[in-house]
């Protein structure tokens, strides 16, 4: 079992490195999905099948897919890849790599100090997780649902403005630009207004 763990770790690390170094956004996302899959398998090895499944379903299956959709919607062309190339000169990497190396060394130093504790002995299945969720963590569940509600409303509102402006920008509609861009009277102030006004410039 240990060798599986090490192989999976290697895959996860390599795919993550690839993810952060790609120029094309979709490539990076796909590499990250590979990393997520390997992480899910690690969970499985550690005796947590429930979250392994959840990782694949929610993280790789919903969140990353959302990312892919947005990247597709942005419709970045080849000039985006050229720009990425410009931005990623080799001297950009130096500072963050040094910082992260220091961080990793510190973490490893702390962790190694106290010997090796075994893990992954017991398999904890969905039933136990469910009992924990409805037992001691029920408040957390409620809060998480409120968080999701807030995310839902926020995403709806912020996404809505962009959509209205986008239709205004379509060809043949420029005459109404001045009329569409200023917000209707019931809109909330600040950010969206500013975006709309920015549009009309």
């Amino acid at each position, binding site marked *: 079992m240990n060798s599986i763990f090490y192989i999976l770790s290697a895959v996860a690390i390599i795919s993550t490195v690839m993810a952060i170094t790609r120029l094309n956004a979709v490539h*990076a996302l796909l590499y990250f999905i590979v990393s997520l899959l390997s992480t899910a398998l690690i969970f499985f090895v550690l005796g*947590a099948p429930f979250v392994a499944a959840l990782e694949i379903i929610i993280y790789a299956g919903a969140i990353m897919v*959302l990312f892919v959709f947005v990247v597709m919607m942005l419709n970045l062309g080849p000039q985006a890849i050229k720009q990425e190339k410009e931005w990623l000169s080799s001297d950009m990497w130096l500072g963050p790599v040094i910082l992260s190396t220091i961080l990793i060394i510190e973490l490893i130093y702390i962790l190694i100090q106290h010997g090796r504790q075994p893990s992954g002995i017991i398999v904890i299945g969905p039933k136990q997780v469910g009992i924990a*969720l409805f037992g001691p963590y029920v408040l957390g569940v409620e809060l998480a649902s409120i968080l999701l509600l807030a995310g839902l409303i926020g995403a709806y509102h912020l996404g809505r403005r962009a959509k209205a402006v986008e239709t205004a920008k379509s060809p043949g509609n420029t005459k109404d630009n001045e009329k569409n861009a200023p917000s209707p009277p019931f809109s909330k102030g600040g950010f969206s207004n500013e975006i709309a006004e920015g549009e009309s410039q």
Partner: protein
Amino acid sequence: MTAIPMEYGLILAGILFSLGLIGVLVRRNIIFILLSIEIMLNAAGLAFVVAGSRWGQPDGQVLFIFILTMAAAEVSVGLALVLQLYHKFKTLDADAARKMRG
């Protein structure tokens, strides 16, 4: 099966976290920054699950579920904001939005 030492799991989580940190600091494209943040979140969740598995309790997994929920909400709002940013600045450069400077 021989148990996997907890520390190795945590070291793996640390390495993944650092890689995500590098990604945040290096990349200029907002999409990649958000992606790197997701990498860091995933690494943190891995750390939780490893810890829960060491103690043989479901608490680690419960917390991982919460982290997942939070990541989902964050990504949806974050990507909506990215779209707004793109429409305002016509670019995905994170440095484009730096008017709030001292």
